[in-house]
């Protein structure tokens, strides 16, 4: 290539990493009483970033007690207008520290800085601003004249959008008057801990937000804790089912946002150049670590060859590498474990007879990497068309008529999102009515906004987050 972009790394110096982190309970960073510690690595280099505490059941209990106290004494009785002030303050501090948070997120998660800088962090602030606005208007949200908070929310979030998922969970919970104990994913704790600092900076009353780091056992202790009133989980369908079983028979309210296998449907009259961008954005955004990723491309058979040629040409321009380089399009896979899963399912795809093509790109030697990949000749019966890969791997299927497209799109245990690409407005409306998916994007993909509810059908979970609808999960409505 004639035009070689020189490295343009975002500086790490803005981030002040500590060698070890405690738990954030009752407004202070504290040591564990019955837990252990583990190392958090940068997936791009395998460099150890910090020692993180794995909270034990005793730690979780302390956190829940602190949250309960804060709910009873301070946050619950506080007027909505006062709560809003705290949320606005948090939102402003998030904006002020945006660059630091973006660098930290890219370091810890492996996602490209252009995404953490231009998507994740701006959305995080936007969710806080949005829900701050609701805090004193809950009586007008359609859930009765004076809806009450639930109490203590136990929230468990995934590693794909660490800070954004925190915002989706904490902002509506706090706006509605609940207090929270949040457990970030074990591979991506750092921005949640930075958020804890922001809570201190904003003078948020102690105990309103508690962060307990750790892995599955910590999450289980939190979800199963007797004094938690509300459980909110985003993550795999497998864990989601376990949580649903664990809370069955209790009076805990639950929302689950789980996996997906979204169809991105391209008709022959689609605005083709934008559709190619939408396919790329649908599956390679955030390395495909997106529950609503457009991981099944359904393309009308009459134009399939040309769409694939153009898609491959476009994929060859994707820049894979250092997440902190401002020109990187696709970063690192979040963990060795996830990389192994992506590799295993890709091998299944080949064994099942689908044809594999990967973008020509040099992958760094250290760290966890997988090239942007498509499988063609995939049928509905293949595992790579049915199971969530959660990586930069696209399965390509074809269809002949709109009815067949709908049938194939809906023929999945999931139902989180879908995309429709056509210049015909009437077809977009018809498709949107037929598709059993929580979000249907028309001539775009992977767009998020705090005013829009988000959630799934079937095994993609239940409950809605975002928008006015997202308040319901945190209100006694």
């Amino acid at each position, binding site marked *: *290539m*004639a*035009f*070689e*972009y*020189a*490295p*343009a790394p975002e500086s790490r110096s803005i981030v002040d990493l500590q060698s070890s982190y405690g738990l954030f309970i009752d407004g202070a960073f504290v040591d564990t009483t019955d837990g252990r510690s583990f190392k958090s690595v940068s997936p791009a280099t395998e460099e150890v970033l910090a020692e993180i505490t794995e909270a034990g059941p005793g730690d979780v209990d302390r956190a829940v007690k602190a949250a309960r106290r804060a709910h009873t004494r301070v946050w619950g009785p506080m007027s909505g207008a006062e709560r809003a002030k705290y949320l606005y303050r948090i939102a402003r501090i998030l904006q002020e520290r945006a660059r630091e948070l973006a660098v930290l997120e890219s370091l810890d998660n492996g996602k490209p800085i*252009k995404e953490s800088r*231009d998507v994740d962090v701006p959305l995080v602030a936007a969710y806080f601003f949005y829900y701050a606005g609701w805090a004193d208007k809950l009586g007008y949200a359609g859930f009765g004249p004076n809806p009450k908070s639930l109490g203590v929310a136990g929230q468990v979030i995934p590693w794909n959008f660490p800070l954004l998922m925190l915002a989706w969970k904490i902002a509506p919970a706090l706006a509605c008057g609940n207090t929270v104990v949040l457990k970030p994913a074990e591979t991506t704790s750092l921005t949640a801990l930075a958020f804890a600092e922001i809570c201190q900076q904003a003078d948020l009353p102690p105990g309103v937000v508690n962060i307990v780091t750790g892995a599955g056992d910590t999450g289980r202790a939190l979800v199963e804790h007797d004094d938690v009133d509300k459980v909110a989980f985003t993550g795999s369908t497998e864990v989601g089912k376990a949580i649903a079983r664990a809370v069955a028979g209790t009076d805990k309210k639950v929302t689950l946002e789980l996996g997906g296998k979204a169809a991105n449907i391209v008709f*022959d*009259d*689609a*605005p*083709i*150049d*934008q559709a190619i*961008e*939408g396919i790329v954005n649908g599956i390679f955004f955030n390395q495909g670590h997106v529950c609503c990723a457009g991981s099944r491309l359904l393309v009308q058979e*009459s*134009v399939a060859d*040309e*769409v694939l040629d*153009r898609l491959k040409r476009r994929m060859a*321009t994707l820049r894979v590498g250092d997440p902190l380089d*401002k*020109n990187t399009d696709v970063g690192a896979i979040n963990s060795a474990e996830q990389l192994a899963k992506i590799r295993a399912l890709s091998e299944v795809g080949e064994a099942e007879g689908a044809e594999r093509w990967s973008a020509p790109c040099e992958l760094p030697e250290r760290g966890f990497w997988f090239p942007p990949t498509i499988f063609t000749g995939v049928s509905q019966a293949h595992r790579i068309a049915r199971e969530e890969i959660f990586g930069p791997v696209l399965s390509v299927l074809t269809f002949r*008529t*709109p*009815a067949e497209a709908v049938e194939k799109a809906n023929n999945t245990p999931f139902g989180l999102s879908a995309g429709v690409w056509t*210049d015909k407005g*009437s*077809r977009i409306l*018809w498709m949107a*009515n*037929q598709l059993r998916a929580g979000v249907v994007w028309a*001539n*775009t993909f992977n767009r998020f906004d705090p005013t829009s509810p988000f959630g799934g059908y079937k095994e993609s979970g239940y409950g809605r987050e975002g928008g006015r609808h997202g308040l319901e999960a945190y209100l006694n409505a």
Partner: protein
Amino acid sequence: MGVSGETYTDGVTSVLPTTAGVDEATRSESSLRRFLHGLPGVDQVGAEARAASLATRSIKTTAKSWAIDLAISMIDLTTLEGQDTPGKVRALCAKAKAPDPADPTCPQVAAICVYPDMVPIAKQALGSSGIRVASVATAFPSGRAALDIKLADTADAVAAGADEIDMVIDRGAFLSGRYQAVFDEIVAIKEAAARPEGADKGSAHLKVILETGELVTYDNVRRASWLAMLAGADFIKTSTGKIQPAATLPVTLVMLEAVRDFRDTTGRQVGVKPAGGIRTSKDAIRNLVLVNETAGDDWLDPDWFRIGASSLLNDLLMQRTKISTGRYSGPDYFTLD
């Protein structure tokens, strides 16, 4: 819902025009219209988002130096004013030959762009420098004149030695759907730009100005691009510089997609020239990034990509000096011509 199970009988089986489709397109007025309206649509939101996303590319150090020199070598240094005089044009030509008099490693620009009456002055001033002379023609900028006047305008410029002709399309005809009229006019101007065999130089290259600020929609930009290329354009150019908006990034993106697809279909490569509104080095580099990631390497050359500009050159020179010396110089260290 009545559209369930609808099937397609309109024979749309290709996203891109085929070679056969291109041959068929120019047979009659109705087939030309059918062809242009059969081109895939452009989604405005998506095109603008793509251009905005490419605009965030961070071009630093060695890449920036390379891009600045390339951008200088792609400039059509332009003066198109009623107040143009031989003195002004000569000064511009001097600047074109040695943009930075203090640094002989600074590349020359690609061409000087002037009104037809200034062509002889520019030819003489540029001499054997290799810098080309582009002349606007065809009742620039509005294009509102009878065909014979446009042809005479073009012939004058060619006779005076213009190497390139920048014509404007008849936007009124285009917007009223008279595509054949636009097509025929481009073909006629192309003929007028030809030099007889045995002349001391080849025919003048034809740049076709779409004036995208008056076409408004990206669908129109795509159609006008194909129309111009089918009629024989050597270059498609965004704007006259007299209408706002001029060369926006999404418009240039759509035109780069058009030349890329046209070559895929016909094998013939056509150049692109954004003109108007590109004033800073950052703007210029963003354009080069668009070229790089849309049409590719083959267009990263002054033969295939030009930037129509006047004030841009000094900003590029300022950045160039900053890179070599580590300091910004004041505007008085760069010549105003």
